């Protein structure tokens, strides 16, 4: 049984999550929306994991690609623009667009080493955020673009108007996001063991040795850049559709990038279960647990003055920070280290 769980945990988790909305009625309400957001962040983190985990390149601006995906999708679907394409087409275009932008950013900057590359991605993130905020004619400035229509708006299948169904019942988005997440997990599993995936790891472990074995480090790194960006774009697209707005550009700022990066490192670099666990803990804490704990404390009426010392979210940052510090102190390779890394650590390599 344990063996089965270890080998097939993805399937077990997928079945459990697929059945959950039928058993837990709360998922038909606000909680359903929060869990959908969680799934979307999982996709985003898996995208980031390609660059940081597999290829070993620190990326501090993943939220920029998340944002570009959201905005491209919104521009192609909102009623104020003439395109009004179906969601699937818009999603495909935003994935291609983010991959292209990833390549465009990666091509000139790949010869930068380590932390210099990190600061370039950080700078890119800030440039994108400021641009989204200031190009009001296109992006709607601080208001963002809305309403982003739900997927399948105007399409009727078996007597169900899909657009209406998505708008009314959050479980539709829940399943859509779960489906996308499952697809990304499967794709990542396949990639991990493919020629390209092994090349990523080889470049991470030793770029010179990898080049000596005939791997083109530049092409491998560029593909990691593009893959990360494309998956982040997909996540952004789902995000905009599920919120039915792009929200304001501050939703795609540096804090978002660090949050996702922390989730990936906390869970375990290069490890798919680790990444998912990291997101579940960090983002789940933020979007599900903190609001719940706040309302739970409120019912005791101990905090009539609204002091931040007495509310749960007043302590949110400290708990978050302490968790990061403690996990790194006692499990520096992450909560669920990838098997390869764990094996290396046991052999006593650095």
């Amino acid at each position, binding site marked *: 049984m344990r063996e089965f769980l270890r080998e097939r945990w993805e399937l077990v988790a997928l079945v459990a999550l697929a059945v959950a909305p039928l058993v837990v009625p709360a998922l038909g309400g606000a909680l359903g929306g929060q869990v959908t957001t969680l799934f979307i962040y999982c996709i985003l983190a898996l995208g980031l994991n390609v660059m*940081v985990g597999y290829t070993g390149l620190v990326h501090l601006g993943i939220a920029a690609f998340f944002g570009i995906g959201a905005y491209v999708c919104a521009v192609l679907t909102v009623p104020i623009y003439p395109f009004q394409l179906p969601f699937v087409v818009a999603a495909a275009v935003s994935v291609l667009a983010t991959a292209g932008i990833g390549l465009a950013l990666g091509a000139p900057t790949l010869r930068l080493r380590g932390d210099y590359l990190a600061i370039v991605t950080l700078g890119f993130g800030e440039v994108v955020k400021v641009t989204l905020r200031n190009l009001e004619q296109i992006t709607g400035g601080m208001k963002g673009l809305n309403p982003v229509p739900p997927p399948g708006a105007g399409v009727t299948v078996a007597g169900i108007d899909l657009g209406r169904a998505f708008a009314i019942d959050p479980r539709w988005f829940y399943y859509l996001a779960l489906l996308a997440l499952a697809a990304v997990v499967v794709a990542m599993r396949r990639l991990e063991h493919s020629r390209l995936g092994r090349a990523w790891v080889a470049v991470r472990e030793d770029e010179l040795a990898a080049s000596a074995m005939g791997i083109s480090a530049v092409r491998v790194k560029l593909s990691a850049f593009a893959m990360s960006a494309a998956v982040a774009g997909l996540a952004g697209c789902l995000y905009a559709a599920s919120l039915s707005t792009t929200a304001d550009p501050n939703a795609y700022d540096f804090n978002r990038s660090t949050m996702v990066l922390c989730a990936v*490192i906390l869970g375990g670099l290069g490890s798919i279960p680790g990444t998912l666990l990291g997101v579940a803990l960090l983002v789940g804490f933020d979007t599900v647990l903190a609001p719940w704990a706040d309302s739970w404390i409120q019912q005791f009426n101990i905090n009539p003055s609204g002091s931040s010392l007495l509310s749960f979210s007043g302590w949110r940052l400290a708990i978050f920070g302490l968790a990061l510090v403690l996990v790194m102190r006692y499990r520096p390779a992450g909560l669920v280290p990838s098997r390869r890394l764990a094996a290396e650590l046991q052999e006593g390599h650095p």
Partner: protein
Amino acid sequence: MSFQFFVQQCLIGLTNGALIALVALGYTMVYGIIRLINFAHGDLIMLGSCFALSLVGWLGLAAGGQAGTWGGIALLVVLCGLFCGGLNLAVDRLVYKPLRTAPKLAPLVSAIGVSFIFMNIGLFWLGPADRSFPELLPATNLLAADGLQFSAKDLLVVVVVVPLMLALSFLVRATRLGKAMRAVSQDPTAAALVGIDVDRVIAATFFVGGFLGGAASVIYGLYINTISFQMGFQNGLYAFTAAVLGGIGSIPGAVVGGVVIGLVRSLSSAYVGERWTGAIVFAILIVILVFRPEGLLGRGTKEKV
């Protein structure tokens, strides 16, 4: 848009740049010695400003006369420097020191964690809203030329930053500790082999970087006059950018980078528009790094097998 206007903007840029450089030194020194991007440095300075604000109240500085004010500011700089230096030292001992041999990204995530903890402390200290920092210095113009503004506040930045930088370059170039710092930065193992206590040198580096940050936090409060628990992020970002631009790990580089960022910020705010400043600063950073990957004054590292 006269020439005089341009000179005025340059003056503002230089003053701002000096302040950025002071913060950037904290990043670059720590990076130079343990290759850690200390994400908590900006928030350390935010806490320094909180401490400075409280000190102004406790010492009753706002009520003092002109002569008392300058003495009081000197006292503030020293006390906040010690506070931030000590705090930085304590964080190194508790958080980063156990991670010296851990995977490279572990200390980075810890630093992000520490920055969140600092922000939360700042939230409790200041409250969620912006707080105004008392105007201790008069805004009268010290220059005779009309059209050009250079007030006591601007003078303060210069009289604090320049001596601190001279002292730092003396420390690094001419003292035993400085020599040890340079040795550890080049090769910690070799430094340990010749009898240098590496941990002590690292601790001293954190203290000195924190001290400079504490001094910067006082000047920041007096110069900008508004502080908030969220200010650390933005300031840290610009200072860190300055450190990278100049060549991270290089002390003169941090100063040059700070001045460049200060000038770019003030000129782009004046000629392009405030709201594009962030984008322009980072776009210039990316362009410079593409053509000079090791920063303006950094030394290129040879890749070793």
